[in-house]
């Protein structure tokens, strides 16, 4: 199966409060580029 260059998470939040979302480049690939991210 060809690799896809995106990532998704969906989570029922465990508690009230703030969260931190981190977007990183996979170090194995050592690539670089632009991204678009959305959250809801």
């Amino acid at each position, binding site marked *: 199966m060809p690799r896809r260059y995106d990532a998704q998470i969906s989570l029922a939040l465990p508690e009230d409060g703030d*969260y*931190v979302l981190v977007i990183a*480049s996979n170090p194995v690939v050592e690539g670089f580029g*632009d991204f678009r991210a959305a959250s809801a």
Partner: protein
Amino acid sequence: MMFVSRHTVRQWGAVGPALVLLFLSARFIAAQEADADQSAPAGAVIAGRAESGSAALYRLVGSLKAGDTLYADVTRTSGDLDPMLFLLPGDTDARPQAGPCWKPAAANERGTDPLAAMKEAADQLTLAWNDDAAPL
């Protein structure tokens, strides 16, 4: 919910899958530079740039309640970026910190598969993570 701040951390030092995750633990990574914070509107699509050895951090604040479903996705729009996405508790101290770095070679020396070590660390250190949206 709002994206209220963003900063990018570069130059993690030795690069490896588990290094990414230990960076997220904010305890072991030597990072040397951070860009200024940046605000973004609530629930909006955001755009940025990432490169090997960097990470963009967004603090999500607002009326996030237990049981709410948070959905996030990130897609490459140019280059050969392979993005990874992590969700951490809001009280995580993700500021750059000096300290010893985990290196992939260390996992190899212990006879541990670096990718397996990365998955294990991600499962322990993050609330959710993904590096490839393709179905298993």
